[in-house]
């Protein structure tokens, strides 16, 4: 095993796949000469040349559209979004072409395309650069939505995404780029499906993904000091959404908390909670709790920004609410519902 950052894990995956397959090309704004806003593509222009590492104009719609055309004609483009907030202008190409081409061509066309970049809030980037789009993309059939939480998944799942036959929305997180973790020395590809238990527990199930997974884990550690053993599940992909480990866990713990950075209405947690109600209703001892971002555009001021983002304390409070009716664990009485 080697220890590397999430950023280097992504970069390693790009290098390994570009070395392996000449049809892999990179496109994006300032990924070449500038070395990439988050340096994920640093040095790759020198290594592969301008024909394979394409600095694009600031034109996300045109770039993604051209990448779709390249993919249809035999290449495997990987498009970097400097921020997923900029991908809104490319939505027509992602949703109307990439996601649907296989279907409306009667299976004649494949679009092996990866679009990757940071999703979610950074630090004081304010309203137009801080938002989470995972539920938006996970709504559309034809897309695969990947939300890796650690370097090993970042590398292994990016490699799988590049080798696949369908468009992949690969959602990274700016505050994870510096995170270190163990990554296999070999050329390991990780399949783009399969939630997994990252912390076993018996009292409550916390479900999350991407950066919020670490919030869930931090909350779980602190709860353990109070004698509450939370099981934490990393979804890893939102489409496909593998809920089997979630249901199996809830059948044991009877309580669930979903943690997302997104706004609460119509977010990923709503879908996950609904699925738990559908599949494990009789096993539940409390309503499924949701920990989410505040329902406001992201403010600039640091104190307000921190208030707008989910916090460990909110995870802990949600767990305690979910433990309602289990007084030996709930250290204080809290109403099972909240506004």
């Amino acid at each position, binding site marked *: 095993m080697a220890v590397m950052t999430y950023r280097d894990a992504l970069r390693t995956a790009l290098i390994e796949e570009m070395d392996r397959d000449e049809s892999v*090309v990179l496109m994006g704004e300032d990924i070449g000469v500038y070395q990439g806003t988050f340096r994920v593509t640093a040095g790759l222009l020198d290594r592969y040349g*301008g*024909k394979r590492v394409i600095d*694009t*104009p600031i*034109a996300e*719609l*045109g*770039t*993604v*559209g*051209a*990448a*779709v*055309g*390249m*993919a*249809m*004609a*035999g*290449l495997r*483009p990987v498009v970097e979004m400097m921020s997923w907030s900029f991908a809104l*202008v490319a939505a*027509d*190409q992602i949703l*109307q*072409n990439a996601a649907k*081409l*296989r*279907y*409306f*061509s*009667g*299976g*004649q*066309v*494949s679009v092996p395309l990866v679009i990757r970049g940071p999703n979610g809030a950074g630090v004081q980037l304010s309203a137009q650069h801080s938002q989470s789009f995972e539920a938006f993309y996970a709504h559309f*059939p*034809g897309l*695969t939505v990947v939300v890796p939480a650690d370097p090993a998944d970042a590398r292994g799942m990016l490699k799988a995404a590049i080798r*696949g*036959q*369908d468009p992949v929305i690969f959602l990274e997180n700016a505050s994870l780029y510096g995170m270190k973790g163990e990554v296999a020395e070999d050329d390991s590809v990780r399949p783009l499906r399969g939630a997994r238990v990252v912390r076993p527990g018996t009292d409550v199930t916390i479900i999350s993904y991407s950066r919020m997974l670490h919030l869930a884990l931090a909350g779980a550690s602190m709860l353990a000091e109070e004698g509450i053993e939370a099981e934490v599940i990393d979804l890893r992909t939102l489409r496909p959404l593998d809920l089997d480990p979630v249901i199996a866990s809830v059948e044991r713990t009877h309580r669930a908390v979903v943690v997302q950075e997104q706004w609460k209405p119509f977010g990923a947690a709503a879908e996950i909670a609904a699925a738990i109600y559908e599949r494990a209703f009789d096993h539940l001892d409390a309503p499924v709790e949701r920990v989410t971002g505040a329902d406001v555009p992201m403010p600039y001021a640091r104190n307000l920004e921190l208030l707008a983002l989910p916090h460990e304390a909110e995870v802990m409070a949600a767990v305690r609410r979910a433990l309602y009716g289990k007084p030996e664990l709930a250290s204080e009485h809290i109403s099972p519902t909240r506004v």
Partner: protein
Amino acid sequence: MAITELAQWERNRVLEAESGPLEGTGLTEEELKALFGQMLLARRFEEEVEQACRRGQIGGYAHVYIGQEAVATGFLAHRRPGDLVFTGYRDHAHALLLGTDPGAVMAELFGKVTGVSKGKGGSMHLFDVPRGLLGGYGIVGGHIPLATGAAYALRYRSTENVCLCFLGDGAMNIGAFHEALNMAGLWGREGLCPVLYVIENNQYAMGTSVERHSAVTDLASRFGAYGVEHEKVDGQDLVAVLQTARQALASVRETGKPYCLEALTYRFSGHGVADVTQAYRTKQEVEEQKRRDPLKLFEARLRAAGALDEARVTEIDRDARQRVAEAVRFAEESPPPPPDDLYRDVYAEEG
């Protein structure tokens, strides 16, 4: 170009064209006669599509190519195996001209499993990948970036193939057009963007005329803003289209640079089958334009050259009508997609 300007420009062209020789097309007399047959097939097919819509056999939207046939006929005549073709939703003729079986096209419009896209695409999404047709697209201008990227891929893979991108005059005001053209201009400098953009300027973006939707009505000239060379051609005169297409495609193939041809044409039918009133144009204007029916013009030239006579034209027409009738029969007798197809082809098959 405004209608009046266009009329003047076309009148000048007619003087040159209609009496001119058949030379310069790069095709033999036999090949030209075959093209007449293909063009007539496209016309008869579209006439039948309009009827089938009225009979309720075709659902949704259907946009026919009647009046514009010389454009696709001329450009596709000079394609080579491996060339790629992208177009908008007025795509039936393009499929037929690429050699797609008329029965498979009609079956697609009828929503049958034997259709080119297995009944999943319909009129606006005809695909025939083996013949290079990478689609009919329903979002105006949305296919222009695709064609541009596909052209890059062709040259990246060191092929000599090119991409043909048909677009309407109405597709030039949307962001996708401008973003794609800017990249085409950039990539073309490196010889990495062999794409021929063919503007099928039928004078109307649905019901909004060119002078009402484009601040600059010389549409070809707008490609100049992105460093893409451009010219115009009389899109009703197949011989002129063939001559121009031959040179343009050879140039794109050789240089790897994008090129634009604006074909000035006219749609005789409504925008779609639902466009009944056509309040945006007069009957007189349509009648005037029909005097330059591309089929009649081409027939006249072939006759003048002694390549066709009345009897042969009748025979070719009978053949076209028969093939269309067979296509309808095939579509009628084909089964709809099985219910299991609902969930098929959303993702690649696993394994």
